[in-house]
């Protein structure tokens, strides 16, 4: 499955540096169109760093990141985004000086087929009544919905979601899970960073395990029940 030639995202031997320290040591993975893939691993394994490297906002990278056949390594972040990639950072990145509506409308359109504001409001009804509130007045869950919602409008076909469930109440995590499954049905391709593998198992097709800046394992979601012990040893839970 992972060797499909039509991989939408094809990362090969990705190396990455934060200033002088070498943090990614050869990440290789493939994501096919329409798949939901998670990167699992402990804190500091290089999951968030991998997403930042894809977006071009990690200091220095080497290796290859091909998206729909085009090389991304060496492009500026704005050019990478305009290829059709939507990024939802770990801290959600809600702008405090902007209202909910302004946050929602901020990312420029980068492709065709984005969701309408009405559709996003249907997906995340909480955002409707908070339209004129400033971004940081929202609860953590609402901020997360806004952070995901605003990249659905742009027509990006690949979504990079960095720990969308972190620090959220179980009921909100369920709501995010419903949304991610809906987005998959709509044809979005999603690369998800997660520490919560129970959540990951409810939304993903495959999982990559990241350790010390490398992919050390790949587990199909259907195989997950048999691999729980293996996964637990990776995650140290």
């Amino acid at each position, binding site marked *: 499955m992972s060797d499909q030639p039509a991989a939408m995202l094809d990362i090969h031997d990705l190396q990455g540096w934060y200033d002088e320290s070498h943090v990614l040591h050869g990440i290789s993975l493939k994501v096919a169109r329409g798949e939901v893939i998670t990167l699992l691993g402990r804190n500091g394994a290089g999951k968030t760093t991998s997403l930042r490297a894809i977006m071009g906002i990690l200091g220095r990278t080497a290796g290859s990141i091909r998206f729909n056949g085009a090389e991304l390594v060496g492009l500026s*972040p704005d050019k*990478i*985004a305009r290829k059709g990639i939507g990024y939802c950072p770990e801290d959600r990145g809600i*702008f405090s000086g902007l209202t909910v509506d302004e946050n929602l409308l901020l990312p420029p359109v980068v492709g065709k087929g984005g969701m309408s504001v009405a559709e996003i409001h249907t997906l995340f009804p909480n955002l409707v009544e908070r339209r004129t509130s400033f971004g940081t007045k929202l609860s953590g869950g609402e901020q997360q919905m806004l952070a995901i919602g605003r990249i659905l409008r742009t027509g990006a076909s690949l979504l990079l979601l960095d720990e969308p469930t972190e620090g959220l109440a179980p009921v909100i995590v369920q709501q995010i899970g419903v949304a991610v499954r809906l987005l998959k049905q709509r044809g979005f391709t999603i690369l998800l960073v997660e520490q919560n593998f129970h959540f990951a198992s409810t939304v993903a097709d495959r999982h990559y395990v990241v350790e010390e800046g490398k992919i050390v394992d790949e587990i199909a979601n259907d195989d997950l029940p048999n691999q729980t012990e293996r996964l637990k040893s990776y995650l140290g839970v």
Partner: protein
Amino acid sequence: MIPILNIPTDVLLGQLLLGLINGSFYAILSLGLSVIFGLLNIINFTHGAQYMMGAFVSWMLLTYFGIGYWPALLISPVVVGITGVILERFILRRIYDIDHIYGFLLTYGVALVIESIFRGQYGVSGQPYRAPALLSGVIDLDFMVLPIYRLWVVAASIAVCAGTWLIIEKTRLGSYLRAATERPVLVRAFGVNVPRMIMITYGFGVALAAFAGVLAAPLYQVSSIMGSNLMVVVFAVVVIGGMGSIGGSIVAGFGLGILEGLTKVFYPPGSNLVVFVAMILILTLRPAGLFGKAR
């Protein structure tokens, strides 16, 4: 005439108007500084020189090309704004990641270079620049005589400040600017060419300074040192309004101009000091300025 606190009303109103005019320049100049500081994180000490260039370019347009005040009001800010874009693209861009002090030293150095060039060419004595016919003359209000040009300066300043505020607070472009002030890298990762936006914003801030320079040309003489004298007060205004606060710089600009005018009526020797006294008081009570947020 009814005197207020033993001060004749015409004297009071006259000084109020003078204060409003000074306030008009403070507001436009500190607004430009705030726009630049918000996005570039640089305190643009070249601002006074760019204000002077605005006045000089309109004087040159008239003297060498016979182009009058009204076209100059547009051409001069565009020309000086372009020099700002070039300065940002080739020099300022290199220092964003290092300490503030380098931005201060660099922009101050550039100001000295620009002012020296103009001083070498034109000396320090002022060149006269006549107000256009439409704005010459006075309106006689019975109790006082209002020069039309001064009213125009106040109106133009209010219009430019309100327009800039609307663009920044109420438009999509403005939301990019505000977002990039908070998280430039993230805005870029959404597909906005932030470096280009920074370059254009610097050019716009510089164009505001030049616009103030054109407005000033008929009021004060056009001279190479006209900017450096004014900027000391303008920096105090920016600090009082709150560094980077758009509304704060406008309110503080007009407010301090009026405060200065009133001081001239009630305690003339204090008029040169009152802005700085206000700065000390406000910074003691609110270290981030009236409208500023702690950074």
